[in-house]
């Protein structure tokens, strides 16, 4: 299936012509199942691979800011909300510690807490989901 390679914010269509030669000897390149790592002219670049279906599904607005994600790896110090809580944009959801500094992760919009994905003391990686919000009840 053809697809797209995402560099920074831009998606570039990627395809191989039928009968094109297989990967030639050249600069170091590695595909890890999701990203392609390319080392060229002394610099390393990380390209994200999206097959066409996934790319178009995402472009159609699958992912919203309903899920608050970890801005960096760290450990949960405190949780300020519980399931069912109504929150406003700017409210502190979770306090994390990373690089020996405490950081408050705040709600990016108004909503109701659908689930809290972490517990106090839990370690997480960057981009891990912390809290999921649903739309405010009308």
């Amino acid at each position, binding site marked *: *299936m*053809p*697809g797209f*390679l995402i*560099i*920074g914010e*831009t998606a*570039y269509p*990627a*395809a*191989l*012509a*039928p*009968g*094109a*030669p*297989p*990967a*030639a000897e*050249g*600069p*170091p*390149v*590695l*595909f*890890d199942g999701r990203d*392609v*790592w*390319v*080392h*060229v*002219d*002394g*610099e*390393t*670049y*990380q*390209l994200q*691979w999206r*097959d066409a279906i996934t790319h178009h599904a995402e472009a159609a607005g699958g992912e919203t800011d309903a899920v608050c994600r970890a*801005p*960096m*790896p*760290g*450990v949960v110090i405190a949780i300020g909300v519980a399931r069912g809580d109504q929150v406003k944009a700017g409210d502190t959801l979770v306090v994390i510690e*990373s*690089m*020996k500094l405490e950081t408050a992760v705040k709600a990016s919009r108004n909503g109701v807490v659908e689930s809290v994905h972490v517990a106090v003391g839990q*370690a997480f*990686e*960057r981009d891990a989901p912390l809290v999921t919000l649903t739309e405010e009840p009308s």
Partner: protein
Amino acid sequence: MITGRFTSVLVANRGEIAARVLRTVKALGLRGLLVAHEVDAGAPAFALADDVRWISGPTPVAAFLDAAQIVVAARDMGAEAIHPGYGFLSENPDFARSVAAAGITFIGPDPETIELMGDKVRARAFVEALGFPVAPSAIEDEDPATFVERARALGAPILIKPSAGGGGKGMRIVRDLAALEAEIDRARSEALRYFGDGRLFVERYIERPRHIEVQVLGDRHGGVLHLHERECSLQRRFQKVVEEAPSPALDDAARARICEVAAGIARSAAYVGAGTVEFVYGAGAFYFLEMNTRLQVEHPVTEAITGLDLVAEQIRIAQGEPLAFRQAEVVRNGHAIELRICAEDAARDFSPTTGRVLRLSPPPHARFDAGVSEGAGVTAAFDSMIGKLVVHGLDRTDALAKAKEALAGLVVFGLRTNIGFLRRLMADPAVTSGAIHTGLIAETPGLTADPAIDAALADRLVALAAPHIPDLQRERRRVPALHAAMGAWRN
């Protein structure tokens, strides 16, 4: 203190320094022993160790701070000496004592020396009493009632520091003395929060300071030498990221003076082992900052310019041997640069990155002290350094060229690193001219931003990447329907 020859050395550390120490231990024909936490399984040190014991704790860091557990593992493996590396328990006098109490040689200075030089305020007082330069300062403990007055009398700018501090936490620069009291209050509350100890001291702040330090070695026979200086002014978040030797800031007279002062301080402390005397340098003046009573991360630049193996020297000293050379025989040769390769994102304020190291291929013609192996995960459990790249040139210009070449040849796939940032830093005009200071990286935001990728480069990257994507390869091999139909035609 136990001295005398030993046949085995345990490394009470991890990462690149564990592997680096074990390399010398093995080269000297000694048994190399290791304690390790399971998150580091398969790290480079494992292949060098003759025996390993697992240690554990509430966190991986806690395991390496658990002196009792490490001493038990050491006795279990029959270790006759312990090398503490840097960080963790390396400057903990109680650890040095418990090692000695177990009948094992601690490779480092005596616990009393660690106690004297490890306390910032006590070490400053010791150095000042010797008549060596320390920055004009006011120490709260000496007379808390007059502290603010004495601080004000130093004149702006001044730097407020927690007495119990380290790592840049709770430090505040005051340029306007009208804000002095408010800043002292804020520094005290930070110091209480970070260290549980609100005591402060202030010292005259040197604008755009340089960090220059001197490597010293002392033996058990009263011999103390210096191994010249290193400059470590390129820092981010108060942490060193590039170190070099010699310092581009010093002429021969200034170099001789600072090195002799460092050796004098070490001699007065009856220093035994490898240590580093750190100075702040600015406007032609230098002040004692602190002494580190251990091997430093950046020791390889000194090894490159002197041709010495500092771990081998530490082991010989711990075995009671006198230093085998005199000061005049410690000759500088060329210029060396060390670059700390870290899993961090310069564009996001150097925040740590995590992931699996899918490829790690060091460049040719450079020393690379690796802390992780290909295939290993880098987690937030420890610091972000994954290795150190060390280059040695004929002079500084040559060393900078070699640094750029080595960085360009170092391939790390699987997680974001600071390699691109270091390449830009090595090409920065302030760096190439040697006009560096500890605030340079913070005041040069252009260094940390990711460079833009133009359309031509993007096309090239896509063309290089596409053949490696299985989905696209399957597409390529599929014979198009029209061609398949044509294949069946016969005329």
